[in-house]
């Protein structure tokens, strides 16, 4: 790891990208709820290696919601945009043309069918 000001990107306004800078034993956990769903970031576990991380992630993040598959990845491999770069994401002009209504409708349908199937499994 590098040392010096780059380790403290919050003090470095010029830098828009940085490694997450977590401890080496932190693993990010991604849960896939159903086959063909995307893996979604669920949280972290502490573990000395990938196998243990998967074992511990199973009980930490899949006890309630359905899961068919888990990913773990060393959190210190994740790079992030700096907090100070948040401005970059805020639109300055009208971009309503990007919000295709049909996409939203599609997503709503997908989510409602997901919830319905989850309720069935839950019974």
């Amino acid at each position, binding site marked *: 790891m590098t040392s010096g000001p780059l380790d403290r990107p919050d003090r470095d306004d010029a830098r828009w990208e940085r490694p997450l800078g977590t401890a080496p034993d932190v693993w990010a956990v991604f849960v896939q709820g159903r086959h063909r769903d995307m893996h979604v970031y669920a949280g972290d576990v502490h573990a000395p290696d990938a196998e243990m991380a998967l074992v511990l992630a199973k*009980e*930490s993040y899949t006890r309630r919601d359905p899961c068919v598959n888990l990913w773990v990845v060393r959190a210190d491999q994740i790079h992030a945009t700096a907090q100070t770069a948040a401005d970059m994401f805020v639109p300055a002009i009208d971009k309503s043309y990007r919000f295709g209504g049909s996409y939203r409708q599609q997503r709503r349908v997908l989510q409602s069918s997901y919830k319905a199937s989850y309720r069935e499994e839950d019974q």
Partner: protein
Amino acid sequence: MPGVLTAIADPSVRAAFREWLVRIADDELVIGHRHSEWTGFGPDIESDVAMSSIAQEELGHGRAFYEQIAQDEGSDIDRLAFGRAPHEYRHAALLEQENDGWEYSIVRLVLYEAFEVARLRLVAASGQEPVAGLARILTREERYHGLFAETWLTRLAGGPPEGPGRVQAALDAAWPDALGLFEATSADDMLLRAGVLTSSPAAQREAWIDAVRPVLDRCGLALPTAAAREGGRRGEHTPAFDRLLAQMTEVWRSDPEARW
């Protein structure tokens, strides 16, 4: 639908099978209680959560087997679980021993899970419904328990510098009690003769040793040679169980008629 016990015509086979169900339920209840003592004290928060979760599942399995008996006999499940004298419990001594360090609990979990999976398979093959079906379903959860235990055992046994010695000491301490899981009583003979069980305690024990040996080998652990310490299957327990039972039943005993 008749219960699993009333469906057995021969009263001595029925009594023997009841004995077996009590044994399974008691094993699960007692180990579940011991695991639950790690809640808040695990080596890290993730393993604390996992061990607590395993504890809940073992208690749940115990409950499922008690229910089979209670439904059949029209008795109260809490009374069955909490309302007996110590000598009426049929778990093996392995399960009642105090948690003497994380390494002991992990070693015990490894040894017990290997036994538990094989026993559930025996019950599943017994043809005694609905218990056989229940055993098939419960096997699903035991897989994770074994995985958790073996993953931890490997890390502990490979952890320098004092890890291997401490794990070996825990294994040596647990071994005689683990062999006690296979203590044979007249119930086993009866069920073997009736064809409900397809494997004798001695044969189960050999199969169990064959199952745990490669796990222990991989961890560089020596298979202990000590003889079995028995008694649990006949209701003879150690002082550790008196303490456990007093604590576990404290709330229930405060008002045995209460509905929770």
